């Protein structure tokens, strides 16, 4: 099966800092890939380069047969980036719900404004996706009335409503109180089981182990190891992977 995401030779500099070094990564359709690594290893930047929230310094990003080269300029490049963003849904660590809109409007906003869908149809899709994350009953609330876990579930529904080919999750549970993490992970697990292709940057080793088809380990801007969760968690090759997993096993967080 051909890859739905293909990152080739991706380089990223922040000023003089070399944060991603010649990254190659492929994700197959319906695959769930978790990226783990210490803070500052470049895992979030890698994810954000895929939908061009960060402009890559060099390399190629391919999403569902759309090929975008780094350093592009002009209208054609902007159009390609726009199409890539339509194919990818993104969930942020800080939720980033729109505070001036109700839950329902948060979810209809993308389809109505970006896709030009008529409102009735958008509401139908929004309600279906809110139901999917178990929050249809909150559709008329404003985000400030929701708990962190509920906010993140709405954010997932908002991304799903655009009917993306791939979902990108950027540390979706890192801003949550411990007791709220479970509900978000459960929704993510459900979405994965429904066959969504997912690329998840996470510190949740339990989730990676249980849900991921493949785990990618990053350190110092490089992919140091990738394999099935089985292999990564039972017999990691790289000592840095082993150190990372041991730290979580002993209950420490970073």
């Amino acid at each position: 099966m051909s890859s739905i995401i293909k990152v080739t030779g991706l380089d990223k500099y922040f000023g003089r800092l070399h944060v991603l070094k010649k990254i190659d990564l492929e994700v197959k359709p319906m695959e769930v890939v978790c990226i783990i690594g210490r803070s500052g290893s470049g895992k979030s930047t890698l994810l954000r380069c895929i939908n061009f929230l960060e402009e890559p310094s060099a390399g190629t990003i391919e999403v569902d047969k759309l090929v975008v080269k780094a350093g592009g300029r002009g209208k054609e490049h902007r159009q390609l980036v726009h199409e890539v963003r339509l194919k990818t849904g993104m969930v942020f660590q800080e939720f980033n719900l729109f505070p001036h809109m109700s839950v329902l409007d948060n979810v209809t906003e993308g389809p109505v404004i970006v896709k030009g869908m008529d409102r009735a149809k958008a509401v139908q899709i929004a309600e279906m996706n809110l139901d999917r994350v178990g929050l249809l009953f909150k559709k008329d609330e404003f985000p400030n009335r929701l708990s962190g876990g509920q906010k993140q579930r709405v954010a997932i529904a908002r991304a799903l409503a655009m009917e993306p080919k791939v979902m990108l999750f950027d540390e979706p549970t890192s801003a949550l109180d411990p007791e709220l993490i479970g509900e978000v992970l459960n929704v993510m697990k459900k979405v994965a089981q429904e066959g969504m292709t997912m690329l998840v940057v996470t510190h949740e080793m339990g989730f990676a182990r249980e849900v991921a088809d493949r785990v990618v380990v990053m350190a110092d801007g490089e992919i140091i190891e990738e394999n099935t969760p089985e292999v990564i968690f039972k017999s990691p090759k790289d000592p840095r992977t082993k150190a990372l997993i041991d730290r979580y096993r002993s209950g420490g967080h970073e």
Partner: protein
Amino acid sequence: MNLFQREPAEPKSQAELLYQAQQRKERQFRTNVGLSWGILLLFLIFLFSGNDIAIGSFSIKTINLDQNFIKENMGFIAGGLWETIKISFLSIAFATVLALLAALGRLSTNPPIYALSTFYVSLIRGTPLYLQIFFFFLALPQLGIVLSGTLAGVVALGLNYGAYMSEIFRAGLSSVGKGQREAAMALGMTPRQTMQRIVLPQALRFAIPPTGNEFIAMTKDSALVAATGFVHELMWRATKVGRAQFHNLEALIMAAIFYWVMTLILTALQSRLEATLSKGDR
């Protein structure tokens, strides 16, 4: 707020007693402040009541205002209220548009646009408002551009307040977090859609209360427009009758009361607006 809805029979908890004591204290403070205001106001009225009071050999003479003058000219001075409100309203509307444009320019990465915005703000803030009003009224005719007093006033006040208020809008725009823009971009919104749908609505809500304050300040600064001699607002009318009959004391006190009452009403409206906004969906 009814935090403690309980059956009356139930014994009061420690927390409730403490809460009630605190509420009582706050109420008492407000009552005492109100009473003191009343006393100060009565004293001020007494000061201008024109009474002679003799206590034994000690006599006090308060300021005597010409009641006839006040009665005769009340209608004339009050007639300026509408003009004052009209100028303030037109000026604040003009200023709001300019301030928003200047704030957007200030955040632009386009050098000429950024320069235009900062140049405008610097020029206006670096010169007196009084001069600006005269400039539009007296200096422009030399170039063949003749503006009516009201129009010159509105242009000058609008330009002036626009420059100061651009800071409010800039703060409003920067108050919208980077994450909001990223979320909009990730959904596929264009920069224009992101600005219109996500950033501006949040920034404007942030900017409404300070804009209200500017409007209140504007109602008072509109008095400067009287200097043109052709705008018959409160201040112009007060000085006109005051000078003509040498009753400046009465005329200016009357105008002051009008301005003050107007400010009190607008401030009350402003705090209600603020309360409504903060109750909203933040």
